[in-house]
């Protein structure tokens, strides 16, 4: 058994897992963070997307042991007790999610994009979502929502830096 200690959504967590456990399974089964989804388990669909040390990762392709000591952010870490994240708000307002299963993965990819490129173009957005499969929506309202969220987030950081 392997003991893994890592930071998840800002909190330090520890779990004891068989060594072949993926980061995805550790998040879902050990840490009860079921927001990241299992869609294919081999890195094709992106439903398991999380952010590790600032980079977008298919958590089904990362072993839990590889996440030792790292900073992992999942969908559960975006909202606070005061507000949902602007991306989550925009997705809700635009009806960007239908069945919702790909949602957490898409939102994490969007967040990683907006953290790096606060003012993305549509081709850049399409590129950022290229690893997230969605069967319900056709991605159209997701792209709309990300543009709206980007504007909202630029407004927020402009306020914060005053």
């Amino acid at each position, binding site marked *: 058994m392997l003991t893994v200690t890592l930071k998840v959504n800002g909190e330090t967590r520890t779990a004891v897992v068989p060594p072949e456990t993926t980061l995805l399974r550790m998040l879902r089964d050990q840490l009860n963070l079921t927001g990241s989804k299992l869609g*294919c388990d*081999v890195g*094709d*669909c992106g439903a398991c997307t999380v952010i590790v040390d600032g980079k977008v990762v298919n958590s089904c392709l990362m072993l839990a042991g590889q996440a030792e000591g790292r900073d992992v952010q999942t969908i559960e870490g975006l909202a606070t007790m005061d507000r949902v994240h602007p991306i989550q708000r925009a997705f809700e307002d*635009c*009806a960007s999610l*239908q*069945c*919702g*299963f790909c949602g957490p993965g898409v939102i994490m990819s969007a967040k990683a994009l907006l953290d790096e490129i606060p003012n993305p173009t549509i081709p850049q*957005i*399409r*590129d950022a*979502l*290229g*690893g*997230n*499969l*969605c*069967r*319900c*929506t*056709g*991605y*159209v*309202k*997701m*792209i709309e929502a990300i543009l709206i969220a980007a504007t909202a987030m630029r407004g927020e950081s402009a306020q914060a830096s005053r």
Partner: protein
Amino acid sequence: MKKRGRGMACMWYPIGFTVAANPSSAVVKLDEDGTATLLTGTVETGQGSLTILAQIVAQELGISTDDVNVVSADTDATPMDTGAIASRTTYVTGNAARLAAEKVKLMLFDVVAPLLNVKPNQLEAKDHRIVVKGFPQRNMHIGDAANHARTVTGEPPIGSASFNPATVALDPETGQGKPFGTYVYATQIAEVEVDDETGDVEVLRIVASHDCGTPINPMLVEGQVEGGISMGVGFALQEEILFNANGVQINPNLTNYIMPTSLDMPEVEVDIVDNYDPSGPFGAKGVGEPTLVPTAACILNAIYNAVGVRITSLPATAEKVFNAIQAKRNAEPKQITA
């Protein structure tokens, strides 16, 4: 060289099951604060049906969407429903929900009429109130009406109803009959760009004009059209389950079964055709499946328009398009300049 082309396709599609009975039932109960609960056996599979049903019930009772709590998909607690299939939920379950809500409304009219000194058929439900038609100053908040019904009249406002589209069985030899209650119609037009050196087809833009009767929620109709188009693009150009000579699938995974990503989607413009079907709830019909029906056809017609090759088997992969272009070139008489 990249060549552009455009192609169109129109279609018709039925709502509900072919001839066979496919009923849905619903229960609506109204509470003393004027909010309601809808019990439905349908299953939300992503298309937004629970929101639509809430809007239908809300419309009938004159309250808002947020006032309706939808409880679904539990055989112990919700009444039977034939299921989320055949684009039937808005039409069939929607009709059942509306009829159930109407029963509640008529119960309240019976209770309120004597309190407002009018006959029940002089009342209507709007803006959270039971109102006298033509004399809105005389009204009662719907919650108060419900409370009165429960605590004074002794009849809690609850209604249940079911609906099944009227059909006529098809003759086994001639197929004549009335298999469906209603149909929807649509046209999609695609603009594509074909690279005649690789056969690669890029769908640039699709304009979709869809009839769904009254759109209960236009935002959700758009979502369905956009999603259907993405499935249509995959059907036209990418997706295929391949078998080996022994009948075993070769590509049962998402690595080798290609389906559209955000990079494959064209620009989509959705237009909803003005229409009203009197047999549907507030004129609504449905839209779930029709959205992908014409997509492959309009894309393939656009490929023909762009490079003059008629691909007759789906998917129109780059290899197929390239081979067809080559075959066409080889069939053309060669020109020899003098």
